[in-house]
């Protein structure tokens, strides 16, 4: 056998053995499979739990609630244990029978900021199915050195001609359309098919002033490289990560208000490891887990548990605007929560706007 052939053969055998060894290793420990948002993939958040319970936590990120629900439907029972989901979408998961009931007495919701417990979203018929773990705002992020901060206090000034081509829009239809509604004086809870005309008009204006529409990284890149000076739909979650290097990248909540996002965490009904899953939920909603989640590498956000403040530094709390939360919570509204038909209309409106 030629030297080369031998080389290839041995490489293949080694690779195969490595694969088997790897596979064998993984099955030695208990595992927990979680379907999450990118902020849960921070090693600083996951490793303390893994070490404390000697388990391996497998994480899979997903794009939109629709994709997560479809993924869960197509999975076999026992494939997944934990789900992180948009606060307003919890009811969909409950309706689909995906989530398991959680024991209220074991959850630290008493320590939460009252406005974010959101029992109406997280429970049904008195049974709790999910618990809020993090919240923040979809509002206006901007470069304080490039724009007039006073303009950022008025939504219509934000996407006025002054800032033509200097705006990026965050690529998520619900909060951005919510902001458009607020700009027209329509409460997000009152959005109907009739409101779509007014909202569509605002969106068109917004779009004509925008240089790009993008996800988390695209928006961060655009802001950081000076491609744009404003991100509509941005917030602390977008700029906090950059705050250390670039303190001029900041955010505010305008007079008309802004949209509040929240994410909840729950245990799946057909989880193979319900006790471990519950432990994970308790860890994430406990003070230390909350502090780490709040400052995780993908995006920052306010922890639901107020006691997490004890585990955050003063600088971190300043970036999160800890002391202004009472004011912010009062002035912001939840995401629009359309029914299936209206949802499709809104998505179509969004996709049409994208293609302009």
């Amino acid at each position, binding site marked *: 056998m030629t030297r080369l052939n031998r080389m290839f053969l041995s490489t293949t055998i080694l690779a195969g053995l490595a694969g088997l060894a790897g596979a064998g290793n993984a099955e030695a420990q208990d595992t927990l499979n979680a379907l999450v948002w990118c902020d849960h993939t921070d090693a600083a958040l996951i490793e303390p739990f893994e070490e404390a319970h000697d388990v391996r936590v497998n994480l899979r990120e997903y794009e939109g609630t*629709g994709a997560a629900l479809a993924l869960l439907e197509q999975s076999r029972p026992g494939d997944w244990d934990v789900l992180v989901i948009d606060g307003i979408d919890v009811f969909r998961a409950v309706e689909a029978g995906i989530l398991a009931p959680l024991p209220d007495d074991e959850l630290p919701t008493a320590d939460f900021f009252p406005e974010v417990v959101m029992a109406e979203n997280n429970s049904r018929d008195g049974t709790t199915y999910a618990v809020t773990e993090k919240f923040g705002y979809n509002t206006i992020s901007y470069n304080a050195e490039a724009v007039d901060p006073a303009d950022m206090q008025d939504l219509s000034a934000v996407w006025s001609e002054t800032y033509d081509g200097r705006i990026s829009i965050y690529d998520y239809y619900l909060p951005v359309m919510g902001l458009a509604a607020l700009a027209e004086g329509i409460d997000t809870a009152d959005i109907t098919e009739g409101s779509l005309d007014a909202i569509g008009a605002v969106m068109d204006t917004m779009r004509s002033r925008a240089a*790009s529409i993008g996800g988390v990284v695209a928006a961060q890149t*655009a802001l950081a490289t000076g491609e744009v000076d404003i991100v509509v739909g941005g917030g602390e979650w977008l700029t906090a990560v950059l705050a250390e290097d670039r303190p001029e990248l900041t955010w505010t909540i305008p007079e008309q208000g802004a949209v509040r996002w929240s994410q909840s965490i729950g245990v799946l009904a057909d989880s193979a490891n319900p006790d471990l899953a519950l432990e994970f939920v308790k860890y994430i909603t406990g003070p230390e887990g909350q502090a780490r989640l709040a400052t995780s590498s993908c995006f920052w956000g306010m922890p639901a548990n107020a006691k997490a403040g004890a585990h955050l530094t003063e600088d971190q709390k300043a970036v999160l605007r800890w002391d202004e939360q009472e004011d912010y919570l009062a002035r912001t509204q939840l995401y629009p929560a359309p029914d299936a038909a209206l949802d499709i209309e809104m998505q179509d409106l969004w*996709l*049409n706007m994208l293609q302009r």
Partner: protein
Amino acid sequence: MNARRETLRGWGFAAPALIWTALLFVVPFAVMGAMSLAVLDGRTLIWGLHFDNYAALTEKAYLLRAIFVSLEITVTVTVVSILLAYPLAWVIAFHVPPRWQRLVLLLTILPFWTSYVVRSYAWLLVLAREGVVNTALTGLGLTAEPVTLASTRFATVTGFVHFFVMLLTLTIYANLIQLSPNYRRAAMDLGASAFQTFRHVILPLTLPGIMTGAFLTFVLCIGDYITPQILGGNNELTVPQVIMVQLGRRADFPLASALAIVLMAIVTLAYLGFARWLRLDRV
């Protein structure tokens, strides 16, 4: 008898590959076809013969627009890549000394050994307002202010051309290097100028190579998701991006399948257009 045994043995050898292709390519395709005729009612999938998804092409503006965007970008990329790659292949084939040709080709391919995803992202950095290109433009005084290049169609096209120039240079080079120098000599002897030689002798002889490369470029470009997603800024969506949106946001497999079938139809039409130059028997 011997012939029959030979044929059986032939089938025996061919079977694994054929079965693999049939089960894991043809069957999924059929499933996709059936799925494109299904419809999504809330969360439940209803099979049958529904043409809703195809009808949606005419009803939903953004779908039709996506097809046009894909075609515009792909054609632009193909043409620009050919125009840039041909001279490059020519220079390598006829001006670089033969000893160094393979090295030069290797150097041409080398940058494409970074991850495709990361390379597209790198273009974002290059084209940024404070990036290399803009710094050069303002530095040389060609423009007063930095130009918006990233997150535009220009960025997407540049990202694509970057890759396909490399691909086409290789295919055209392979073609050029096989040309017997006698053709050129004969043409010169008969009094043709360099340009005439090129136009009437070299170009027709290399056309099959160009067309094969162009077809490959067309197919790969129109079906690509990453480059437009990273570099396009979502300012306009191509068909693959729309397919992924249907999957990622709505888990709408029926609509995604219908769009995939449409994409396939476009590619098939392109194949028929290029068929003259693509000879499968000389695979």
